[in-house]
């Protein structure tokens, strides 16, 4: 298998990936998109646009391909080089810069490979990167291991809603006690934030599903859920706006967006006094 690694001049993350490949004897061809590899990357990008994320600040490098698969970003690239597709789900493309690496999700990968996942984090930390981990609360024991080893510098937990309808919102059965453990754990990291997106909930499935947004009352219950998990009303808690067009569920794409989150903030502040709204 031959690898091509698209890099950018001066990109620290690219250097770390190259060092990983060299250390593990993985042969590759480097193409610097700011130098001799510019035209080739353009061509590659045009052909694979749907697999390469272009964010607000442009394309995150490095981008790795073996001819069949494409992986973007330091986390996903090293994960693929370490364990192939086994770690898919744990990593996605990030948005942070410089020494910060995000797009790390202990809640959504295959638990059988948790140790391999942790090994990637150890490598990143060993290269002086700061890691931001994002979780919806599942796999609390993996998060616990991250905490014990000091592998994350910041954790963002998406508490999707109140315990009573957590599974309904996620769309699959969720062990609420697992979520509770994560809530308690998150507050122990050096830096952390809880957040909830005010999503439309499919209250009743069927041909004519009953759909309505989380209510301010339910957000208050969510804030209470966090308070119970942490024993504190003073956690950083962000309320976010749901963007229907970005939904993966076709049924939710046409729902009218909310016009104001202020009632939600008011409701949440009864249990989490530092609640703020996401700037959009």
């Amino acid at each position: 298998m031959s690898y091509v690694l698209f890099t950018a001049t001066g990109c620290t993350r690219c250097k770390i990936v190259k060092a990983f490949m060299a250390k593990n004897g993985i042969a590759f061809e480097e193409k610097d998109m700011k130098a001799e590899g510019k035209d080739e990357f353009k061509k590659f990008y045009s052909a694979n646009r749907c697999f390469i994320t272009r964010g607000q600040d442009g394309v995150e490098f490095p981008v790795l391909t073996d001819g069949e698969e494409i992986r973007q970003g330091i986390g996903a690239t090293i994960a693929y080089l370490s364990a192939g597709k086994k770690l898919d789900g744990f990593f996605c493309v990030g948005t942070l810069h410089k020494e910060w690496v995000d797009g790390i999700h202990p809640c959504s990968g295959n638990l059988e490979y948790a140790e391999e996942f942790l090994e990637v984090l150890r490598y990143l930390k060993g290269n002086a990167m700061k890691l931001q981990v994002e979780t919806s609360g599942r796999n609390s024991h993996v998060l616990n291991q991250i905490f014990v080893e000091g592998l994350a510098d910041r954790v963002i937990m998406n508490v999707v809603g109140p315990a009573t309808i957590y599974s309904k919102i996620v769309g699959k059965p969720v062990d609420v006690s697992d979520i509770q453990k994560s809530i308690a754990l998150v507050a122990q990291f050096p830096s952390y934030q809880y957040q909830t997106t005010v999503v439309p909930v499919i209250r009743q499935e069927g041909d004519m599903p009953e759909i309505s947004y989380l209510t301010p009352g339910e957000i208050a219950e969510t804030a209470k859920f966090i308070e119970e998990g942490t024993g504190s009303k003073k956690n950083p808690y962000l309320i976010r706006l749901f963007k229907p067009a970005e939904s993966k569920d076709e049924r939710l794409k046409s729902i009218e967006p909310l016009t104001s989150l202020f009632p939600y903030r008011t409701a949440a502040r009864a249990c989490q006094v530092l609640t703020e709204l996401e700037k959009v």
Partner: protein
Amino acid sequence: MSYPSIYPTGVTVYNPEKCWSGYTIFPARELGALLIDMNGAEVNLWKGLHGFPNKLLPGGYVLGHTGERSNAFGMQDQIDLVQVDWDGNVVWKFNQHEYIEDPGQEPQWMARQHHDYQRAGNPVGYYVPDMEPQVDKGNTLILCHRNVKNPKIADKVLLDDVIIEVTWNGEIVWEWNCNEHFDEYGFSEEAKNILFRDPNMRSAGGGMGDWMHINSMSVLGPNKWYDAGDERFHPDNIIWDARESNIIAIIEKKTGKIVWKVGPDYNASPELKKLGWIIGQHHAHMIPRGLPGEGNILVFDNGGWAGYGAPNPGSPTGAKNALRDYTRVLEFDPVTLEIVWQYTPIEAGFIMPVDASRFYSPFISAAQRLPNGNTLITEGSGGRLIEVTQEHELVWEYISPYWGEKMKLNMVYRAYRVPYEWAPQAERSQEVAIKPVDVTTFRMPGASNSRKKETVVDGVWPFQGDGALCVAADEELDK
């Protein structure tokens, strides 16, 4: 400027025939919210009630605050906004804007209100025919503080201005954050440079940049400009002014965007040059429909020191680089920027510029248009309230007798005149004329008013006017 050490306080001038008589409410320094009649009799004192400002509502209600956050941690943050009745009972209260934990203090919710607020029903917080503020319902717009970081403006903590709209039940339903519109204010590169390095740093809380210092906020209300199709003046839009930047602006309620402004650079157009530099201003608002001058902007243009821009001899760094040692009260057309009416040292009868600082309040202050066309002016720093006619005649004057002990000033932040009917609990006051005293003959007990001898000196010439003062004055200035 020389002030006498002895001068009368209370009401010093009152012409009932030319005044729009009523009660006047103002925050008396370190005393409370004080309601006086035209002769200065104290009708009601809501003792200890803070006022930033105080406003009287129909029914004898007064708005104010139960306290101010410790200056060690906050800059002018009022802990709440309350409405109390004639007997001092709190009937409405808002404080749930920010949860504050100051070292050594009890953690609590605070409004962090400062400088202004407006209750629905009335756009400006003072008497307007047929626009009574609501007293038992309705939303309230409140000007508040919030600490933010915005590296585009400065690398320091900024004390930002936030306008929130709060329901009668205390729910925030609308919010506008000043720092998020930085690109819309039209700061020059020179201004941005000094603003970044010194966003008006204040010592509270370990240091915070009070970069704009919005000190007035009101609603436009129905107006002729909007009726004629000018969307910038939608009745729901909000006008504010910021003393540190010399900006007066209108924001669109729907989007939060700036849709009209004057400043920060008054050299930017011929119209602005003619309007002249507005510096450190207060209480800019649109005169509401139903009052003489409706649709015009009325502002207390303090002068003093404010703004960001190029360094000059009076401002080596470019901070507070606009300077003027006298005040102007301006009424101007918001479309043409033509001055429609003004009260400056000239209209006050002082020689410009040598005696101009006799009409001067470099901070606080206000102006209210009255139904008969008079203007109530709060010349705040000296605790002087005056009512002047359209023709600039002084028909009422009151000097606050309340000096603070913690701050040795008799300053009055802002005063409002209200109709007698708004305080039905009070017995209607008598209106007794007070003629201005001739100060050339007025003496303190024991001081002489006599001349023992007058000697004629042959050959002396008559005295000249002011054409050869040490500095150019009056007409000579315009040549």
